[in-house]
């Protein structure tokens, strides 16, 4: 909470100082179109939390302005009359609102916004000595200067939050996975105990459906966050492609682990709710349940250690998990429990994913960043 308010304070400070500086410079220049300078500074300073997000918005702003100027400039130069200007004003205004749907393509919004403002100004300035090419040239120079002021202020006032933000995301996704895993294990344990009390056919299918839907919804939220975050990460890790790719791989792994968890749910359930015919079956069943419980606790332990960036402890816990999984393998092989074969593949796949997470470069990077 304190971090949020600190960030907000810096954001407000960056905005206030950069707008004030830009306004003073624009008054000093005292040109007809110098208000573009503080306007660009204002637009770039919105929605930024780190200097790199400011850089991203600056590049988009400049690119969008150039495209917009080219677009509107061509229209004004080819059809220099009021009716055409009005027609294109409506068109560009509509396209500005349309482009808002493409959140990650900020330059598209800036492009149409610039084009519509230039059309508006060409109508507003009609009958003056301000020619369209003058308006266009001024616009480009002032946009560039305004964006640079905002960028400069953000580098001074904004804290370099990239690593902190990455760590937050890293922990968030680990938590999401372990929550899924816990939900699946709780449900399996519950349905197993229910079955032991009643008959195997009395599985609460509605409850299963709810869990399945919840998992699917969560998975969606996770993938949406991924799709929205990745373009920003690409900029945040602009100078570190290796870490960016590692982060992408890490997020893929978590996504895969969550799908594996939902698969584990359906494959384990069929085994745990089956009718036990002999004492050997009962023994096997209890042993498997015990090992699965141990697997769950160890996995949770590994995740907590990963979240705390304690790689050595996580490695030790991983060794324990591997040992535990081997025991499970042996029971399945010795007793030829065919119902558990898919679960075994999934558990090994999860173990493999955890191994990658423990030894992955993200752990090293975040550990170093935190210690620095």
């Amino acid at each position, binding site marked *: 909470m304190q971090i949020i308010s600190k960030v*907000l304070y810096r*954001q*407000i400070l960056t*905005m*206030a100082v950069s*707008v*004030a500086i830009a*306004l003073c410079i*624009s008054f000093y220049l005292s040109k*007809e*179109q110098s*208000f573009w300078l*503080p*306007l660009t500074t*204002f637009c770039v*300073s*919105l*929605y930024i939390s780190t200097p790199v997000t400011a850089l991203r918005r600056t590049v988009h702003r400049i690119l969008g302005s150039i495209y917009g100027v080219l677009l509107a400039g061509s229209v004004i130069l080819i059809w220099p009359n009021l009716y055409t200007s*009005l027609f294109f*004003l*409506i068109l560009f*205004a*509509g396209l*500005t*609102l*349309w482009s808002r*749907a*493409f*959140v990650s393509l900020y330059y598209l919004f800036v492009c149409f916004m610039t084009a*519509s403002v230039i059309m*508006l100004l060409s*109508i*507003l*300035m009609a009958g*003056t000595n301000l020619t369209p090419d003058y308006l266009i040239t001024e616009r480009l120079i002032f946009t560039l200067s305004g964006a640079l002021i905002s960028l400069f202020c953000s580098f001074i006032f904004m804290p370099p939050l990239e690593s902190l933000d990455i760590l937050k995301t890293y922990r968030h996704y680990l938590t999401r996975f372990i929550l899924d895993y816990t939900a699946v294990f709780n449900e399996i344990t519950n349905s197993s105990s229910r079955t032991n009390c009643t008959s195997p056919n009395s599985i609460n299918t509605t409850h299963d459906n709810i869990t399945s839907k919840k998992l*699917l919804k969560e*998975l*969606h939220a996770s*993938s*949406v966050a*991924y*799709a929205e975050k*990745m373009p920003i990460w690409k900029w945040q890790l602009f100078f570190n492609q290796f870490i960016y*790719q590692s982060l*992408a*791989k890490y997020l*893929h792994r978590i*996504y*895969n682990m969550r*799908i*594996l968890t939902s*698969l584990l749910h*359906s494959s384990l359930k069929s085994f745990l709710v089956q009718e036990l015919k002999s004492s050997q079956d009962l023994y096997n069943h209890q042993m498997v349940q015990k090992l699965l419980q141990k697997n769950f606790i160890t996995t949770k332990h590994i995740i907590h250690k990963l979240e705390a960036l304690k790689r050595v402890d996580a490695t030790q816990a991983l060794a324990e998990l591997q040992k535990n999984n081997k025991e499970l393998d042996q029971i399945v092989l010795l007793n030829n429990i065919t119902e*558990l*074969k*898919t679960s075994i*593949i*999934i558990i090994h*796949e999860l173990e*493999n994913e955890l191994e990658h997470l423990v030894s992955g470069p993200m752990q090293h990077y975040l550990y170093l960043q935190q210690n620095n």
Partner: protein
Amino acid sequence: MLGFINYIRHDLEGVYTAELLRGSISMLVACILLLVTPSTNASAYMLIIALYGLRSLTPLPLLKRMIHLLFSLILLCSTLIGAIILGQKEQYLLAVIFSTIFSAWTVYLLDRKNHFAGTMMFMSVFMIVNFGMGQTEVAQSITINDLLYSCLLGSSCVLIAALVVPVVNFHWCLLINHCFYHDLKLLCRYILKAPDYGSQYELPLKTRDQLLKLESSLLNILNHVKSPVRQQLYQDLTKGLILIIFWPSAHTDKNHLITVNRLRRKALQNIIDILIYHKNIEPCLEQLSYEKPSTVFDPFCNGEFTKHIDKVVTDALYLSKWEQLNTKKQERI
């Protein structure tokens, strides 16, 4: 068409489309008024109000929404007039103070996700731009009465647009389904084109990214399907598809890997044939049943993978039949 689908995918709720319509109507009315009303030096400011006066409508009763909009317009018009007057009188210090306060306040309100943030943002923009405009030669002869008249006309355009398109969002109806099938086809094709894989990490990073985006898009579309039956059918199919695509087969023997990949391809091809090309569906089912190995001959996955595939293709068949019945019903109506 692809651009349109891409657009719908980004605006599944239809919020931006409603705004687009309102904005275009507002500008159209403003342009007509500009041409038909007596021209003054401040006429063009009507366009500014019509262009930037529209706020995103919140899901409130219409009357409340209109009151909010009216309040927002009063603030914007006051800022516009105030900024021009300050510009005409070259009150630099006041301009800096107001612009800085408005800008800082915008950042605060945006962080708090306040509905007033949009109005405050444009108050800042109006303060900056119109102070500059007020300093120009053209603006020197503008009177308050002219400005008030233009603001009144501009605000009318905004209110007319908000009344003509009073909805907060649009539902894309059948186009949503079209989007779903489009993304489903793309997803299946990506896997069909990809080489055999045991784990998704064997696929190139770009393909994995695309897969994730398409899956996310499919799951997102699901949330916007109105019919509960259709939503359930789409959901079953999507979930099944994700499981097939991500089915774990790494670190298993070569035979197992080949089997899983062959079955996966066959299922995906069947799904495309059934749902996209509307091929005769019965032979597909027979072919699949013939292909379905028994648990004895499928020791690697304990028959679970084939069970999953069977379920997904059956879901696709069921969806196809349901679609056919639905179309027939609509034709009869």
